[in-house]
């Protein structure tokens, strides 16, 4: 912004007017030099006479000029100076005010004062940020998550609403990132040692049966889908021969139908029974409207990679499923 240069034709005059400009004592970083706020009191400070230049230049003692100066310094002056300060718009001010010499030099005292203010602001910002973020510990706050052992035998996904509480309870360790995370599955029915078994994440029903001592000779293994992925907190029932094979026999609903018992039956959308996203295999998912083999496989892959779904909404994470399709599927699936 250095626009006043010696090359400008009238620079001698500029230089002449520049030279006597007083530097007021006690420079203040906020306000410049003028130490007096009252425009009506020109006082000893030459730099304070700008507002009443009409009085100062032409007829210093004249009443008319005095009245004019008072008027300018009154309401209109207040309006103009407030507008100028807030917006930089030099309303009604003398043009020459804005073309004075540039002043860059900072005294150590002014610099220290400004730094102190900046430091105070910075400290306040840091304090606020830290206090707001104080509840964000690196170790996350788990909400009402029972320990896996406690929930293992008790969880029965009978509440199909997929509410937060249920979803959190079913998968406390399921989304763990380490590959060695274990899940807890309750295997009952035609196995040698029915009960709780620990399995690796992503284990299949066959692994669960093996872990439970293997199927008994009376087990009807073709009634269940041994290849299906078992989820943490799930109960799996292996039917005996002659037992009503209603759940699994229909269309490969796998352990899902077996586990819920009453909720068995076809996973076809037509049946009205929601499909469990965590236990249904690709074929069952394929049967859903709007989901083809590719999407069904992606859902299974997502489950394998990220652990079980904890809410129906997480279906949105699967590439190819958007909010619209999710809206259509919402009533047909559960977790």
């Amino acid at each position, binding site marked *: *912004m250095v626009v006043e240069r010696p090359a400008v034709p009238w620079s001698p*005059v500029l230089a002449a*007017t520049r030279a006597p400009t007083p530097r007021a004592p006690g420079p*203040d970083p*906020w*306000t*410049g030099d*003028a*130490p007096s*706020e009252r425009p009506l009191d020109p006082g000893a*400070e030459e*730099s*304070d006479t700008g507002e009443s*230049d009409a009085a100062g230049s032409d007829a210093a003692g004249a009443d008319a000029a005095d009245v004019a100066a008072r008027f300018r310094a009154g309401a*209109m002056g*207040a*309006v*103009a*100076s*407030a*507008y100028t*300060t*807030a*917006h*930089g718009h030099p309303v009604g001010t*003398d*043009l*020459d005010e804005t*073309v*004075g*010499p*540039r002043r*860059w*030099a*900072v*005294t150590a005292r002014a*610099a220290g004062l*400004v*730094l102190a*203010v900046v*430091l105070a*602001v*910075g400290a*306040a*910002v*840091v304090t606020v*940020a*830290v206090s707001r*973020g104080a509840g*964000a510990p690196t170790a996350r706050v788990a*909400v009402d998550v029972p320990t896996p052992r406690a929930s293992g035998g008790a969880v029965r996904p009978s509440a199909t609403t997929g509410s937060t509480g249920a*979803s*959190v309870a079913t*998968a406390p360790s*399921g*989304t763990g990132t380490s590959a060695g995370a274990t899940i807890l599955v309750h295997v009952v029915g035609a196995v040698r040692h029915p009960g709780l078994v620990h399995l690796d994440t992503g284990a299949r029903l066959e692994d669960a049966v093996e872990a439970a001592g293997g199927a008994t000779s009376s087990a009807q293994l073709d009634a269940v889908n041994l290849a299906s992925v078992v989820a943490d907190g799930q109960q799996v029932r292996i039917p005996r021969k002659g037992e009503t094979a209603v759940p699994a026999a229909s269309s490969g609903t796998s352990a899902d139908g077996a586990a819920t018992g009453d909720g068995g039956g076809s996973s076809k959308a037509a049946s009205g029974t929601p499909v469990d996203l965590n236990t249904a295999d690709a074929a069952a998912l394929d049967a859903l409207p709007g989901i083809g083999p590719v999407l069904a496989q992606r859902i299974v892959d997502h489950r394998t990679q990220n*652990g079980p779904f904890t809410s129906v*909404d997480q279906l*949105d*994470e699967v590439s190819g499923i958007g909010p619209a399709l999710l809206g259509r599927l919402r009533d047909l699936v559960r977790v």
Partner: protein
Amino acid sequence: MSAGGRAPVDLRLAPAALATWLVCWWAVAAGTHAVVLAALVVPVVGAVAVVGLACVPPLLPARRGRRAPRVRPDARTSAVLAAPVALAVGAATVALAACAVQLVVRDRADLGDLAASGRVVTVEASVRDDPVPLRSAWGEDVVLASLDVTTVDDGARAWQAAAPVLVRGDPSWSVVAVGARVVVTGRLRPADPGEREVAQLVPLRAPEVQAPPHGPVAGADALRSALMDVTDDLSPQARALVPGVAVGDVTRLPDDLDTAMRTVGLTHVTAVSGGHFAIVVATLSGLCALLGLGRWARLAVLAPATAGFVLLVRPDPSVVRSAGMCAVALAGTALGRSARAVPALGASVLVLLVADPWLARAFGFVLSVAATAGIVLLAGPLARRLSAWLPRHLALVLAVPVAAQAACGPVLVLLSPAVSLWSVPANLVADPALAPATVLGVLATLLAPVWPAAAHVLAWAAGCATWWVARVATVAAGLPGASVPWTGGLLGAGLLAVATVAAGAALWNWRVLADAAGVRVPWAPGARPSLAGWSWVARGTLRACLQRPDRPAAPPEHVPPARASAPRSSSSRP
């Protein structure tokens, strides 16, 4: 708050403000580790530099002597440079440190990692800003809403957080109120680097509002909605523009008027900007002065009114900038000192950037500061130069939009790659309506809840003022040259800046250019041209156009010979 005649233009805070801005610009888009490292390295390097400057004898005494003529060149010249450098380094360091802390707090929210893998989360948040409706590239209606997240639940875990996210929702989001607490489920997407928000959230459902806004924000909302009710049955432009100038609500702005105002650079009218703020504060100051209030009484009126107005119109970047300058002015009043626009601008930029480094990349803030700096620093010299041709008041009135446009033009090109030839004339013609529209609109807003009938009358009167603005915008946007294509991006901005500087240089050295072109200019700068002089110019120009352009014409007798009369005779004082 007078400004002294021939007082120095106080640029002492400018280097520190610029340094802080550069640092913040870089830091908000850089990684957290880099910022933390910089916050440790910069003060060390800076301290070495400052100590070096303070100890090493001055290398360029002549140059510094010219810049700071009143400091004795023999003593403490190095300190002259050391103190500004120390100030700039110190301010930059504080800004870096504050930014680093905020980045660390945001990182601990873990939203960035979840966004990178596109997870679905449920967040509890408070609405930070008014939802902005816009149309996406493929014609889909989208609403952008900024939320301050307080808890995150990814299905398996839940944790507390403090980080902003940007919701990209459907039109059901346009009704959420600022300050309301909402629960949202949606899929996270990465945000653009440098954005204030750590992630974008594409909601799966309409927002669940847990708690409506409360406290002062609710009061401001009540005022805003009352104004919307009062202005509902006005003419189309008034029902859109009166809420726009009064409280910055542009939801009713018709698309064609919006486009017209954008085209001719009148957008600062439709949204509440620093100018509105200044009008309100200036009006209040005038009232205080009329009532003869003392310093502290004035402070007691102005400080709450300023804060309330910020709440009412929402703390947008330009409003924050203006409020910052106002706060400096008020602090000056409290200390019994005058406040000037240049140091006030520097101080508010410095403090605001330390408080909120993301402002450094906010277009509203950049534009607001550029326009203010342009007006503060350029309008005066420009008006003085223009007063060689024009009456002083006209010169000042013309200089302000020219200065603002010169400073804002390159930034505006970044937003839309076009230049309007009618921007300055349109602003010049439309601006007189802005002050009455704002004052009447704000009065209508304040009256709307308690006395709707009177508010309606005031809003109608404000609508008359906005009619003028709308008319100017529509007419100017229809003129040829309203939108001249220009290269976009940084290249276009750079080109326009160069063109602006070149035009300014031409204006400054017009006499040299005129001499070179063989045109004799009849009057000296500062000597007001008379009507006769103008007619002589007109005749001369006509003659030159009709005959040979380079043939010099003889100056008439009544015009003072160039440079012989006292320069600036009309403005110089004893």
